[in-house]
């Protein structure tokens, strides 16, 4: 890689004239390039390249008690976030009316289930109630909220309390002890 200078040291040639040695105009740039790339590597590794994004989460004001119209159970899909990245949902019936509990994963499977149920009642009436259980992880919750953003469903609620009938239901149907 590097250039090897093999020129004579400007010494006297036998019987010749004394010639001044011409300095080469070429500079060996190898060390400079080395240093340059070293610094580049350092800066690449030391910088954060992709900035994280963020999703906004608005929660209702707990200090104010507003009377809201009760939602019909027939329009509600209640999603329980269970352990081992599994979600369970019931649709169209309240928990004490012996509904069918379906199991889904997250991602595409979940979206399919959502869209299927949206079709049944229409997106203006459809309400999703998200109930993370204590077995679920933060990722599960973010995934579900993300699905809401993807499917553009506006009517959803994050509820952290499970009713007694819901607890019994999950225990009986899917062996989930909460």
């Amino acid at each position, binding site marked *: 890689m590097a250039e090897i200078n093999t020129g004579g040291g400007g010494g006297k040639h036998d019987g010749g004239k004394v010639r001044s040695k011409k300095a080469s105009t070429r500079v060996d740039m190898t060390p400079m390039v080395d240093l340059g790339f070293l610094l580049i590597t350092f800066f690449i590794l030391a910088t954060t390249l992709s900035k*994280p994004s963020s999703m906004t989460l608005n929660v209702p004001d707990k200090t104010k008690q507003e009377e809201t119209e009760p939602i019909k159970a027939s329009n509600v899909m209640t999603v329980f976030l269970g352990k081992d990245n599994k979600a369970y949902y019931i649709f169209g019936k309240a928990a004490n009316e012996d509904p069918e509990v379906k199991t889904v994963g997250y991602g595409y499977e979940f979206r399919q289930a959502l869209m299927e149920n949206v079709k049944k009642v229409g997106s203006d009436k459809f309400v999703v109630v998200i109930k*993370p259980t204590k077995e679920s992880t*933060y990722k599960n919750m973010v995934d579900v909220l993300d699905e809401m953003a993807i499917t553009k469903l506006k009517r959803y609620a994050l509820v952290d309390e499970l009713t007694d009938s819901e607890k019994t239901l999950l225990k009986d149907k899917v062996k989930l002890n909460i």
Partner: protein
Amino acid sequence: MPAVKIKRASSSVDMTAMTDVAFLLLTFFILTAQFRSQDAASIETPSSISGIKVPDNDIMTIGLGRDGKVYFGTDNQNTRIATLENVAAEKGISFTPAEKKEFALMSNFGLPINQLKSYLSLSKEQQAKVKQPGIPTDSTGAGANNELKSWVYNARKANNNLRIALKGDNLAKFPEFKNVLTTLQAQNINKFNLITGTEAPPAGWTADK
């Protein structure tokens, strides 16, 4: 007939062009560099399709580690000092200027207030070895032992424009997140950001205008 001489190719390559490119890239990286801050714990966030960027300034980050430990940090050094002074006044502890200066350099931390003073007196190497136990929270959000409550309150007192970002780990359990959520809600903070990674939305998906 003269011998055919093979022309020797020069072994030296002209590196000017390469140097140019290298230094161009170097300049670019120096100018755009935003140094990674040393975090108290590594948090792997889940990803979402949301395209909203996290603001650079005026932000308070509440971290939630995979083991459920809670970390707290603000972006600005002056805010950090002001927050510490407010908390210290509330808890009846005083910090020396050196400790405050040390505290200002911490981008986030997860220590109960009574361990903070001894932690600040350690050297950088020793600090890195300390296993931070996390900031105490509780499930009601307003208990006497809930220190996150006073950190959040006093940080907002120090800088009223602070926005709140929650940075949770993939594996953090929901109950711990709920504790943080309740703490914020107890102070009537109902709007905050969840910091996530970026993932591509499904094909054909467009954002609402």
